[in-house]
């Protein structure tokens, strides 16, 4: 979603984001321990993290899985070329299915790339993923030109990182 505004984070937020980017200490009171180096109380750390979660600055706090050690080898990016005025409706029918992990509308790059609606399906078995794609197409998308791009190899999956604290960097898609 393109945001028309940016949420303000103050210097203490940025310092905190830098301190937790590689994860929490495995201690009984990790937020207290993080706070020590930043001269923040445990309560301040918790309040700031909660606020940044509710502002969606921290999209999610928890585990980030590598797909492949868990056997998720069939990672499909499915794309459709949907007229702009029909794309919201098409996206709605895609996201109604719980096997879909991501769904976006992106800019086309005609003539090389005509597709604008994307969804990701992460599966363990390719034939299962192919059936799931067929379900999507039967559910109103078959009329639109489509391609499925399975991933062959993964070269990099670093996830969200700060380039060097305290600068703010990225988000994992």
């Amino acid at each position, binding site marked *: *979603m*393109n945001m028309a505004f940016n949420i303000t984070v103050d210097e203490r937020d940025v310092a905190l984001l830098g301190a*937790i*980017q*590689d*994860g*929490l200490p495995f201690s009984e*009171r990790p937020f*207290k321990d993080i706070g020590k180096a930043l001269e923040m109380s*445990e309560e301040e750390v*918790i309040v700031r993290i909660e606020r940044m979660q509710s502002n969606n600055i*921290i*999209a*999610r*706090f*928890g*585990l980030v*899985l*590598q*797909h*492949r*050690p*868990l056997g*998720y080898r069939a*990672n499909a*990016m499915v794309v459709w070329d949907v007229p702009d005025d029909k*794309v*919201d409706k098409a*996206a*709605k029918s895609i996201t109604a299915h719980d096997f*879909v*992990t*991501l*769904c*976006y*509308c*992106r*800019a086309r790059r005609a003539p090389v790339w005509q597709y604008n609606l994307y969804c990701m399906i992460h599966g363990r078995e390719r034939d299962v993923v192919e059936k799931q794609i067929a379900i999507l197409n039967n559910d109103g998308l078959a009329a639109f030109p489509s391609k*499925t*791009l*399975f*991933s*062959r*190899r*993964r*070269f*990099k*999956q*670093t*996830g*969200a*990182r700060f*380039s060097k604290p305290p*600068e*703010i*960097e*990225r*988000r*994992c*898609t």
Partner: protein
Amino acid sequence: MSNPVTLDDLDRKIINALQGGFPIVDKPFNEVASWFDIDTKEVITRIKALLENGVLSRFGPLYNSERMGGAVTLAALNVPQERYEEVTRLVNAHTEVAHNYARTHPLNMWFVIATETPEQIAEVISQIESETGLQVYDCPKQREYFIGLRLEA
């Protein structure tokens, strides 16, 4: 490329529960332990082991850089097969490239670029173009309908 790792039921339960979020409370590992009626040490040992064996790439926050003025895009290249390794090295050498997948299409390399400002996206793209001699197809996001990337362990 790692092989599938054997997980027991408790590993799976911990992973599935924590993918949705981590308790932001003073004793979070105790709280997680209480969900499964195990002790805190067990939770910590399990999470550490999952990080070590590569099931988890991270245990921590995912930032939404767009909310702070940053930018993210998905870009693609049509890389000649004989240059694939070389181009992979050139692309991944950019710290702004967050992940990179080979995919089954003439546009056979797809990667995410994330930068601290929107202007830097164009800079990274033009650097990659001049280093590789290939045209980068930039497909910026126009609308986001769903991000639920959670996998059953």
